[in-house]
């Protein structure tokens, strides 16, 4: 009997050992591109309302009328082969590409594109505001879309937005059931890839397969499938990449990213994004209501020290508009560089500083964001010698935002740290959301009010449609104005640090589409 037990135990062990052989699993197949992200991919499925991490997958399933090219700083044709506007920028005509079909099999027509955009406008969720200027849409023929706007707007840029600009087949399911049809894990785009399977909560959450009738065709070398892996731990992601089991990791920490430099199989890339970290200074109450104190804080920040501490994860931000986006300037009159002497002089003029009245400021930031935590710690230590004490409060974003929006000024913070990025390639996003006068605070968390700036931003929005050089000049003046009034300290621009297999060719980051990899454009190694 005992012999039987021993034999059975040995057999079981042998079975496990046999199973364990090759248990590392197959490496990523050459024709499958595997993208590693840290959190759930498909939060939303509806192309009209999606407004989250799903952009990384949906951008390979759906296409837009235009696509922003960061090299030319212009919107370029995508589903539209050409586009033009009248001189005022109030009527825009888009000529659609012929021979394009949705993944449902139906052809792309002006009527279908119109239906998609009108559904997005009607649902009015996520980034639907990008169609805000649209008064009506006409379809004079099967392949022409004409937008009549309420006021001049750069609709070529709006149409290239990362969210809410997707053109899709609204007839993929009956109108009342369409939202539910999407949520079940379907897509109805025109992009190169379509859903193969969706395994919610699994390591490989989503797999896309090539759409055989894709209008650009499948000649030449292309990936035939895309997998989206959800790997919360960066160390695990690094190990998967090192073992060649995945192709691309969206973000590691700077130390792990640097550890791949010189690797024979893994490449590293770094590119400045359009996401900048801003510290809003309370212009309405407390010591920061005094412009001199705000300017002193702006001079006291050790910008280069913060960037050094972030080990390549960030680069310097001059003004408000990030590098790579039109309206950005590498240098601006009145830009702040660390100057403690000036900071002390400004504080002294306001009655504060070393040996004078002490200042205590509350700073809020999002809990769990290690970069924000580091910045908060550095600001606290940099301002302490100036007799400015910073009380750091880390909290969940909804809590931080609720505190910032509080109708009771006494409950608000002095410094509000948060990221901002645009939904389409226009500096207007920063100004209208963050610095336009608000009766009740929403995103203007410096509580800043400057009627002159309000007028200038309204003019800049219209000029962007009709006269880009004039708009650029206006944005320069607006940024100089903000530097003078110092309602915000632009701390840095985040740098996208990517790691990918060297066998992946042709990868280029496009900051207009955060974290998106356009897999069709990549060339797998033969």
């Amino acid at each position, binding site marked *: 009997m005992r012999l039987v037990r021993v034999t059975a135990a040995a057999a079981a062990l042998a079975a*496990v050992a*046999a*199973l*364990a052989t090759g*248990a*590392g*699993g*197959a490496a990523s*197949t050459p024709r499958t591109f595997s993208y590693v992200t840290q*959190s*759930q991919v498909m*939060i*939303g499925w509806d192309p009209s309302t999606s*407004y*989250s991490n799903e952009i990384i997958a949906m951008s390979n399933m759906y296409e837009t009328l235009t696509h922003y090219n960061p090299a030319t700083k212009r919107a370029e044709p995508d589903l539209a082969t050409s586009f033009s506007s009248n001189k005022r920028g109030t009527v825009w005509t888009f000529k659609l590409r012929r021979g394009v079909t949705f993944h449902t099999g139906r052809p792309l027509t002006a009527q279908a594109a119109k239906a998609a955009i009108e559904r997005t406008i009607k649902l*009015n*969720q*996520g*980034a639907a*505001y990008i169609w805000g200027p649209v008064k009506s849409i006409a379809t004079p023929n099967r392949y022409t879309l004409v937008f009549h706007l309420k006021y001049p707007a750069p609709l070529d840029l709006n149409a290239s937005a990362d969210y809410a600009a997707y053109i899709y087949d609204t007839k993929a399911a009956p109108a009342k059931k369409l939202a539910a049809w999407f*949520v079940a894990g379907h897509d109805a785009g025109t992009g190169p890839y379509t859903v193969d*399977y969706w*395994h*919610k*909560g*699994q*390591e*490989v959450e989503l*797999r896309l397969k090539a759409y055989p009738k894709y209008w650009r065709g499948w000649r030449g070398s292309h990936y035939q499938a895309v*997998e989206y*892996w*959800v*790997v*919360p*731990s960066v*160390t*695990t992601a690094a*190990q*998967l990449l*090192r*073992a060649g089991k995945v192709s691309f990791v969206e973000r590691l920490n700077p130390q792990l990213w640097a550890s791949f430099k010189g690797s024979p199989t893994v490449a590293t890339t770094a590119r400045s994004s359009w996401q900048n970290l801003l510290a809003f200074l309370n212009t309405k109450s407390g010591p920061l209501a005094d412009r001199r104190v705000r300017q002193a804080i702006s001079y006291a920040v050790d910008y280069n020290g913060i960037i050094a501490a972030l080990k390549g994860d960030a680069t310097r931000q001059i003004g408000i508009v990030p590098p790579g986006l039109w309206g950005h300037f590498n240098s601006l009159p009145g830009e702040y560089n660390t100057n403690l002497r000036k900071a002390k002089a400004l504080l002294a003029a306001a009655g504060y500083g070393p040996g004078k009245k002490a200042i205590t400021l509350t700073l809020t930031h999002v*809990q*769990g964001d290690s970069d924000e935590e580091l910045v908060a710690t550095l600001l606290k230590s940099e301002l302490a010698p100036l007799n400015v004490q910073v009380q750091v409060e880390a*909290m*969940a*974003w*909804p*809590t*931080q*935002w*609720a*505190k910032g929006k509080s109708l009771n000024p006494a409950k608000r913070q002095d410094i509000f740290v948060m990221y901002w990025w645009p*939904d389409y390639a226009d500096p207007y*996003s920063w100004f209208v*959301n963050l610095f336009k006068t608000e009766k*009740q605070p*929403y*995103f203007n968390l410096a509580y800043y009010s400057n009627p002159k700036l309000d007028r200038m931003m309204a003019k800049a929005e219209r000029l962007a449609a009709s006269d880009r050089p004039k708009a650029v000049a206006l944005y320069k003046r607006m940024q100089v104005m903000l530097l003078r009034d110092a309602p915000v300290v632009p701390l840095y621009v985040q740098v996208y640090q990517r790691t990918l297999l060297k066998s992946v060719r042709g990868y280029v980051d496009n900051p207009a589409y955060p974290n998106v990899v356009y897999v069709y454009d990549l060339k797998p190694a033969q």
Partner: protein
Amino acid sequence: MTRFLARRVALGLIVVAGVVVLTFVIARVVPGDPASSWIGPHASPAQLRAARHMLGLDRPLPVQIWRYFRGVLTGDWGLSIHTHQPVLSDLAARAPASLELVVAALLVALAFGIPAGLAAARWRGGAPDALVRLGSVFGVSMPSFWFALILQLIFFQRLHLLPVSGQYDPSLDTTHPLAVYTHMPVIDALVSGNWPVFGSALTHLILPAVVVGAYPAGVIARMVRASVLDTLGEDHIRMVRALGFPERSVFARFALKPALNPVISVTALVFAYSLANTFLVEAIFDWGGLGSYAADAIQSLDTPAIIGVTLFIALVYVGANLLVDILQAVVDPRIRLQ
């Protein structure tokens, strides 16, 4: 026995209800508007108002709690703010993976803990005893994330023997698609006879199960050791020894069986504890369980998901306690007579 059981179930339900109310109130008292997470980062005030109404956040707290309880009883646990999916469907997709991991971890813990505890008692004061006590302290006190990283480094990075993450090799999804019945790949593969996935799922289970099982293994080993040593001093063991039974039989047959009663209680309680303890381990091994779901929920102030996870764990705790009570009552009639 029926009255005893009814009383225990009633008490358990009161505890669960209390936990839900407390979690609900705490989640609502924390400043912040979950609707801001629902609608996205650049939402307009009108969109935010619409989202608050749609999520029922504009109603008074007692009304929200009442609606929640009504929903729980009818299978509607609310919509997750973070995933935009029904919480119950999210839990149904995530909880089985956590349960699978915890069950595997407990099997590992029992397989190690019982023989180790027995050996420590058998050679009390000797080298095996010292080794088991040291191992138990190690298992109980070692940070799970550190242990996980070390195991990954050795078995994946160095030896290329075991997988680093996931529940099974994803490339099998194209060659051997898995029919999903329980959301537990080992069970699903076994039921459907999908042997490649079954083998892959078993090997993927080893490292996380060892990490999660380290704590209960330490507890069980110490409990078995202490319990067996207690039993050894009792009259019936002296009698067995006097009758000339070999020492191996004294330990394995006569001392271990009565000593296992407290171990059963501990195992049930450790099961519930381990379920909450897997969160970090799941993140490191990319295990699609409740861990990452709960972490995302907390970060985005996803009240329905936070309450859903809390409710689920409370139910498991209460269920485990109830099971212990029943088992003890079955084993020891004095308990149900009290």
